[in-house]
Every structure is written in structure tokens, then in C-alpha cells.
């Protein structure tokens, strides 16, 4: 396959303007990892089942393995490393840390992004709602409880910060 078939895509990744020349068949996941160096977006199944390759595309969680890079042209992407400035943790990440919500850590970036997106729509979700929203992000280590604890704790703290009516 010659490089002539490559197309240019323009993306915003974690606030930064990025360009890449990609083949039309290349997934957003592969381009993010191997072209743009975002290894925090991870391959887990290639079927859109496990959620480890979750990225926020214009604010919504999407499986990077199911989207072609060319389809994301012009989009704004956020990976887990975009949740907080380098060297800092987003309060949601801090809650994951405190609650032991990561074991092997492989699902953690996708889990954080899906939870973050949920919290934009519903700042004070019930535990049941969190469960339902996270069904597309599989975790094989934790049994989910500590992940749910972390998201709940973040929501409670955020509500306190905003005056208790969140």
C-alpha cells in the first residue's frame, strides 16, 4: 500500500492541535497510539466490547477501536491524560486513587473517561445509575465496587464544593 492513499486528519487531542497522515482503514485507536503516542488509550478486544480504548470524542465516550481515524477528522478528543494538567490529578482520579479503584490499571483510563462523561450529564448519579453507565467498561480485577465507591465519593465531594445542591 503506497503512502499516496494516506489522508490528512486534523484533531485536537487534550487541547493540543495535532495532524496525522493516516490510511483510510486505520482505527482511531491505532493512530492515537502509534502515530500520536497516546499509549494511555489501550487495545483490549478490537470489538468495542471491553471499553479499554475509550476516548472522549467531542465530549462523549467512544471506543477508539470502532472508529476510523478519518471519521474523527476535525474532532476534539480527550484521553485520560487530558483530565488534568501534567503532574496533577483530576479530583476524580484522586478519588480512584484513594478508594483503590485500580488494580492492574488497564481499564482505568477508559473507566475514568466514561465516569467523567456521566458526571457532566448527571453530577449526582445514584450508585445504580453509575453501574448502568459503566457497563461498557469491563474490569476483570476489582469487582467494580471500589470504582463505584470512587465515583460516588467524587460526586458527593463535588456537590459539597458547589453548595450541596449538585
Amino acid at each position, binding site marked *: 500500500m503506497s503512502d499516496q492513499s494516506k489522508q490528512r486528519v486534523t484533531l485536537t487531542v487534550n487541547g493540543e492541535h495535532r495532524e496525522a497522515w493516516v490510511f483510510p482503514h486505520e482505527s482511531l485507536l491505532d493512530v492515537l497510539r502509534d502515530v500520536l503516542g497516546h499509549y494511555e488509550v*489501550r487495545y483490549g478486544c478490537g*470489538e468495542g466490547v471491553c471499553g479499554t480504548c475509550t476516548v472522549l470524542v467531542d465530549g462523549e465516550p467512544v471506543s477508539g477501536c470502532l472508529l476510523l481515524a478519518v471519521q474523527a477528522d476535525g474532532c476534539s478528543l480527550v484521553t485520560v491524560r487530558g483530565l488534568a494538567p501534567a503532574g496533577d490529578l483530576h479530583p476524580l*482520579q484522586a478519588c480512584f486513587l484513594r478508594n483503590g479503584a485500580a488494580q*492492574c490499571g488497564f481499564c482505568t483510563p477508559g473507566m475514568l473517561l466514561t465516569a467523567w462523561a456521566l458526571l457532566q450529564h448527571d453530577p449526582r448519579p445514584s450508585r445504580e445509575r453509575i453501574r448502568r453507565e459503566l457497563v461498557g467498561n469491563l474490569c476483570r480485577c476489582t469487582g467494580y465496587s471500589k470504582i463505584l465507591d470512587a465515583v460516588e465519593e467524587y460526586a458527593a465531594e463535588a456537590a459539597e464544593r458547589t453548595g450541596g445542591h449538585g
Partner: protein
Amino acid sequence: MAETEVPARQEAYRVVGQSPSHHDFVDKVEGSLLYAADWQLPGLLHGKVVRAEVPCARIAGMEVSAARALPGVVAVLTAADVPWNQVLERPTGGLGELAVAMPVLAADRVRYQGEPIALIAAITAQIAEQAAELIDVEYDDLPGVFDPERALEPGAPLVHDQGNLLVSWIIARGDAAAALAAADVVVEGEYRTQRVEHAYLEPEAGVGWVDTSGVITLRVSTQVIEHAPTIATILGLPQSKLRVISTYMGGGFGGKEDMTVEPYLALLVWRTRRPVRMVWERQESIMASTKRHPFILRYRTGVQRDGSIVAQEVDIVGDAGAYPYLSPRVLFAACATASGPYRVPNVHHRARAVFTNNAPTSAFRGFGAMQVTFGYEQQMDRVAERLGLTPQAVRERNFLDKGDTIPTGERLDTAVAAGQCLRRALAALGEPARPSGPGRRIGRGFAVNMQPYGRTVWFHDRASCWISLEADGSLLLRSGITDLGAGQAASLAQIASEVLGVPLGEIGVHIGDSQLTPPAGGTFATRQLYMSGNAALAAARALRAGLLPVAAELLGAVPDDLVFEDGMVRERDTGAGRGIRLAELAAACQQRSVPTAHLGTWYAGTGTFDPATGQGASFPDYTFGAHAADVEVDTETGQVRVLGYAAAHDVGRAINPLRVEGQIQGGAYQGLGYALGEEIVVDDGQVASTLLASYLLPNAADLPDVRVIVVESGEGKGPFGARGIGEPPIGNPAATIANAVAAATGVRVTQLPITPERLLAALDAAAGDAR
């Protein structure tokens, strides 16, 4: 969520028993941890394994010239290119198993679907994929055997010329046949467990390259860097030229205990002299990676009217698949633990591992001791039912205690808190719920288990750990330990911090390198807290003992009055200001030629086992636990809903309670997936679906929170009296759910998983019998 029972402690710990966040947790929530597939090197090639499409055939021909000619392909290797095309690992010292070598690449015969037959390295993954499709293999199909009991029959097709029976273990004590004949009641049961996939979210992966002095270096997701000599042998290289580095793994659960990508990656690096990355596709992993053994379990349990067990006969057949892997070890663990945490004076256990033309089975969290729980804990409920006793009463009557003898003839020398775990788990469930509608029935079930921690003692197990005090007062800890995500590395830092008073943030931890870190023996068998934890404790104490006289001299104090805390050595009960900083102490040691680096090595106990009599030494110790659940069964659909779930384990001492809870919750959840949905369906050696979408892993909404009760008896053989907790919690759920379903419906499902279809069929059959 956990209620922790803390016994009276002889000494107060500062760091042990706390749940600090460690270095690896921070990297993981940041997303900055570089896993095995995340390593990039200039000129990186992409490696691929070409796999057999059929399960049992002679390879009549293989044409690779078109693949070799494809632009972008750098190397295509077949069996003829492998210097030593055999994997024959870890012989067990002549304890009766067949010696069967596994080829690295199949040469003339394939024995399971997915068996590696060729390797490709290309400049892109896509070209490697295209090249694989250009390899033309001509197969002459041979009759295969796919059922282990069929494989044992005379005249069955042979998977290997040496025979289909890989190993047959016996553990026997007393006279089981006579005691069964004399028993008041004999309860019989047959149970079947299924083939399941580890489904770690990180597929098998690694990057290899040629490093300084021609050392082939593999950075891979593996539980065991000690495969390095085996890989060197395959390449015909001295061991000094082969280095394995383990990354922090994205899960392993035993599935990265055997080699996965290592030999293939090493061969491609060796041939191309270029860096190569290999990542198995999920579907490839589902098809061809090792699985948990399906077991057929047959029990005969003899009891007296009062519920006392007098005898038990157990016969176990495990499907080993096409190659040995760790099947002899798994079936030994099953054989040793098949009677569970109960006193059984007369036992006869037999466990056989049998070759078939299915994908090989091997280590998976629980390792044989897990499957048998599905047998012995349903037997206990059946005994209770037959005798008109409660399931709890039957167990309380028979629980093992410290000092009791187990079927191998060994005496238990640490606490057995099985009964306490059971009572606590049941209490935690509270009042059962009412059925949510007509046709719904509620039931409560529970299961108690014992799981060994540490390797079989005849392996003379040992582990080393190196700790040094650096010039600035920080610590460096080096260990060959590999980290599955359970905090294996972090626990060692916590132990060092406890002894030496160095804050965790000032302890550098370097792990998992076959050439740079002291050997720790691999992370499996729930052995690392026990083995490397004791090694780290020994190293830290040796370092402390060396520092103490120097500190005493500098402070003009008595050594016994000194404490190590907050990066200082100071006199006990003095203000924070009086004392010496560890950095100053390091400098003083330098001036006095006192060593500030120590290697600690822990040797596990040893012993021998006689396979002829079935008596002798087996495992160092056990972790006991109990799970209890309330379920609601929809008798119209066969759907089982878990309403509440509690899990209690005696961990001896919780080094890091948050991580202990995480292990128990995660293990229970995995066990519930095993109980209710997970199964790799294989039809005449062909995997029915290789899609993750077809494999029913529990998601966040499928099951309730697992309520954890951490029991701390203070009696374990690990550091500070800890026991291992990695494997134990996966053992109980299947029997817990089966017993709860039986309590709800009166119908017992003896084959896993307990799917709606299977339960409905059982309910219909029972209704038919009733009519």
C-alpha cells in the same frame, strides 16, 4: 465496606495495616504506566504467530514463499528455523507424569486449533496479517479426541505416542472403602465444571530487541521471568544472552504464568536482529491461550447420623488439552484439597489429567483447588439434606482445626478460622429479602473453602530481595517479583517501610528483571506475599541490624532503645527533634565500612511426597474463607439474580487492607462470572466463538457489591503473620450460588455455568419427576 476484625496485637505497626496509595496506583490513574505493548523502539517490526486452523492433523506441506516475497515482510520462520524446537519445562522430579515435550512451532503434526506453526515479522501489523494469509498449509486430518473420558478408553486416538494419561495422582488415608461400607449414610454426587478464559484485559504482549553485548531482551507481560533459561535454550544461546523484563501486567490470573509471546518474540528478534513487537489479538487469545481445566468430579461421602464425616472417595478427571503445561500441578492441588476444610478420617482421592485435542489448560487463579469446591460444598449440603440437619450444622461438626490432620497426613500448624468466616459471612447478609413477584423464589447458600498459598514444598521454593540505604536516606528495593496488579511490588515497599521507617514515597522499587533483580520465583500460587514478603522482611531486618550499632554509637544510646521512623533513627519516647537522619547514618556507615545493602532470602520448608501411598508433604499452608449469598430465581425464565453477597477470609494479617478487600471483591466477582455465565464452548476441538462479545464477563450492573469481612487470626506464614489472598476468593462463588439456587428451588444444578437454559431444564425435569 469491610468490617475488619483486629486481634490484640503484640506490637503496634505504623505502616502495616494501613492502606497507603503506592507508586503503581498513581501511574495507573494518571494513565502513564507503560504496559507491554506500549514500548516503542526505532525500526520496530510487528510480529505475528501463524496458527493451525484444525485441531488434529498431520502437516503434509507448508508453502511460505509467497509470504516471504511480500514487500514489507522481514522474516518468516517455521519449525525448521528453530534451533531447539522443544519446550520441556519444570519436570517434577519423577512423580509419575508423562514426559511430553511441546514444540515451539509444530513441525509435522498439529494437536489443537490455534497451535503455532509459523512466525512472521513485517514492517506493519497489517502486512504481517497479509503474509499470514499467504501461508498455504496442507493438512491431512487425523482422528482426534476431545473428551477426556473418551481419551481414557482403550483404542482412543492418541494425542501423544506416550499415551493420553498425563498423570494420575492418589491421596489416600485410612480405609475409605470399608468406612463407606460401614457409614450410616452415603451421599453420591457428580459435578462438572467448564472451560473458561482468564480474560485479563491486557492481551498477551511484549517488545523484544537486541541490547548491548548481543543480549536478547524481552519486555513482556509475564508472571514468570524465570522462563528466561527455557527461552535461551530454544535459541541455542547461553543464559547470559537472554534477558526477560516483566512489565506491570494488565491482569494475569495465571494465564501469564506459562510463556505466551516470549519464545516467538525471541525467535523473531534473534532472526531479524531488529526490535519486534508482538500483541496477540483478543480473538487469538480466546482461541489458543491456556484455559481453566474443565473437571468431572465424582464424590461419595460417608457420614454418621450426627453428621460426622467418616469417609470420602473422590475421583477427578481434568481435561489437560494437547500439551502438559501445568496440568500435573493443577491436578495435584485438586487431589490434595478435594475434601475441603473438613476432618475426613478415611479418604481416597484420585485426580487424573488427560490429554485431548483441545487447547491446553493450565494455571488459572484457584489452580484445581477452586474447581473441587464446587464438588465438596455441594456434597455438604446434600449430606445436610439427607440427615435433616442444617447445612451450617453439618459443616460446624466437621471443620478442620489447628492440629488436625489433612488427607496428605500433614498436621495443620496455623489457625483455622473457617467457622468464624462462615458465621461472619452469614451474619453480614442480614435478613433475606422477599420474592419480588410470583414465580420468583429466594434462597440462601454458602460455601467454605481452603486454598493453598505457596508452592508444593518439594520444589524447595525460595525468593530473594535486595534493599539498600542510599546516600540521601532513601531506600532502593530490588526484587525479581512480577506485579499482576494486586500490589505485589507495593507490599514489599510497605514491609520495608515498616521495618526501616522510611516513608513510602522515598522507596524506589525495581522489579521483574531476570538479569538485574534477585530471583523471586514468579508470581503465582498465591506465593509472593509469603515468599518475597518474608525475603523483604529479612533484608530490611538485616539492614536495620547493621545500622543499629552505628546509630547507637552516634547517639550515645543503647541500641534496644532506638526506633526507626520518619526517615530517622531516634530514641524511643523522645521528641521528634532528637535523633539522626538516615542520610547522616548512611554517611557514617560509609566511613566505618559498614554495608548498607542487604540481600534477604527466604527458604520455604521442604518435604517429600510419596505418590504410591498418597501421603507426604504438600503445601506450606492454607487460606480459609466462606462466602454466602441470597439469590432470587425466576422459575419462568431460569434467571438467577444475586441479591446479596458476602465474603469472609482469614488473611492472617492484612498488610494493606484496601488491597485485601480488592482481592476478595475481585476474586468473588470472577468466581460469580464462572458460576453464572462464563464458558468457552468447544465443539470437536473447534472453538465456537472467539469473540469477547460472546464471552459473558460480568459487568458493573450484573451483580451486587461484594461485602467483605477481613478476618485476621494473626497466624499465617507470611510476614507479620499474613496469609496469601490472591487466589482464595475465586473458589467459593460457584458452590455458593449452586447451593443458594438449590435452597430456592429444591433443584440442584451440577454443571457449570448455571445458565438460565440449564436451570430451566433442571426445573422442568424436576417438575416432570414430580408429576
